[in-house]
């Protein structure tokens, strides 16, 4: 599903150049569950953003579902992203002006589903995350755990092939953290590919494979369990 070759990302500010990703060669197969670990500032989030096509690599190749996308225009990448990728962020990323229902519905508006199909899918996702009774609330009226469940519902409502999760439990207490990890585990069971950035060794154990990043390089890889297609 994902194959990168010599992926490099350099940030340039006035005088300094910072190498966020040095030369990343990474392969993720469809149906895999991969965890990315490493100290703060080692390039984990940058890698996830580049894989999610919300940041552009400085150089290198990125093959996604058989298409070489590094040369694609923003519009082409947006099309691929919206149809295939769901995001879960540490800070939930909900729109305060919209209700829970509308927040979850949002990706479907961009995919052009009919209103009846949208309704069906939104309710299905809200049910899956057990937040139906909250559907008319605004994000600020919910607890952190509930907000993250809404965010996961939004990430999965378009039935993406790939979920990218950046510290999905970072703002949650352990009980709510467990809950979100269980939800990601269920999604993986049902066939979704997951790439997750985490600081928590315990949560990384949920994956097939742990990749360790340091100073913009992959320094080691641990196979957790055998991955069979």
């Amino acid at each position, binding site marked *: 599903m994902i194959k990168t070759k010599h992926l490099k990302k350099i940030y340039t500010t006035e005088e300094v150049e910072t190498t966020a990703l040095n030369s990343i060669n990474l392969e993720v197969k469809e149906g895999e569950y991969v965890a990315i670990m490493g100290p703060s500032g080692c390039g984990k*989030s940058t890698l996830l*953003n580049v894989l*999610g096509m*919300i*940041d552009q690599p400085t150089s290198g190749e990125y093959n996604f579902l058989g298409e070489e996308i590094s040369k694609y225009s*923003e519009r082409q990448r*947006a099309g691929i*992203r919206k149809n295939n*990728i769901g*995001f879960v*962020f540490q*800070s939930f*990323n*909900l*729109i*305060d*002006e*919209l*209700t829970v229902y*509308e927040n979850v519905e*949002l990706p479907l*508006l*961009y995919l052009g589903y009919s209103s009846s199909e949208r309704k069906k899918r939104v309710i299905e996702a809200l049910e899956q995350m057990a937040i139906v009774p909250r559907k*008319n*609330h*605004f*994000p*600020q*009226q919910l607890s952190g755990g509930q907000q993250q469940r809404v965010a996961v519902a939004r990430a999965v409502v378009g039935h993406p092939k790939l979920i990218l999760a950046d510290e999905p439990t970072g703002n949650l207490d352990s009980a709510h953290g467990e809950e979100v990890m269980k939800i990601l585990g269920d999604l993986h069971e049902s066939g979704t590919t997951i790439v997750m950035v985490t600081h928590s060794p315990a949560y990384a154990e949920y994956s097939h494979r742990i990749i360790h990043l340091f100073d913009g390089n992959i320094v080691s890889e641990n196979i957790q369990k055998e991955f069979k297609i």
Partner: protein
Amino acid sequence: MISLKNITKYYSTGFVKTFVLRNINLDVEEGEFLTIMGPSGAGKSTLLYILGMLDIPSSGEYYFLEQKVHRLNEKRLSELHKNFIGFVFQSYHLIDDLTVYENLETPLLYKKIKGSERKGRVCDMLDRFHIVAKKNLFPNQLSGGQQQKAAVARAVITEPKLILADEPTGNLNTKEGKEIMELFKELNNSGTTILQVTHSEKNASYGQRIINLLDGWIVD
């Protein structure tokens, strides 16, 4: 526009009632720019959330544009909130996988506004907030100040009558903070009512009136 009468808010734990707001009486006229100040824990944010209908008082009456807010059900509250109120928070709450343009457009998608008008409004906001050049970028490609500008732009794109701002410059440096305050000033000059919570005397000086809260009471 707003009239609060004897608004009280408390939380019950076991047999103990912890009061956050006590006997709040407050009137706000349309077009005012009002600042709520006070130490941490004084009840400022709770008051703002009650005004924004995101929280419900334990007792008292709240009138908003002649409507008895304290009598309304959840659905009506949610409608009032959506149609008249824009909320700006200290943290930005942008969606990281949508561009700046798309982030701004989202509240309009739910307002039955047609495509060409949506485009016009988004472009107008980008222009007013000096972020036209950023419209195709993602939030993580912007500075903190630019992200907050985008967040404020999104909060006001539906032209709310009332803006509630909870420490809107709390995460910004002095220059970025000043820019946001100037934008609020402009919005106020064009008729928008603004209520802000802040610790900063400087930010308070942009408004016309200051309310001080202490231990849940309004004090002089």
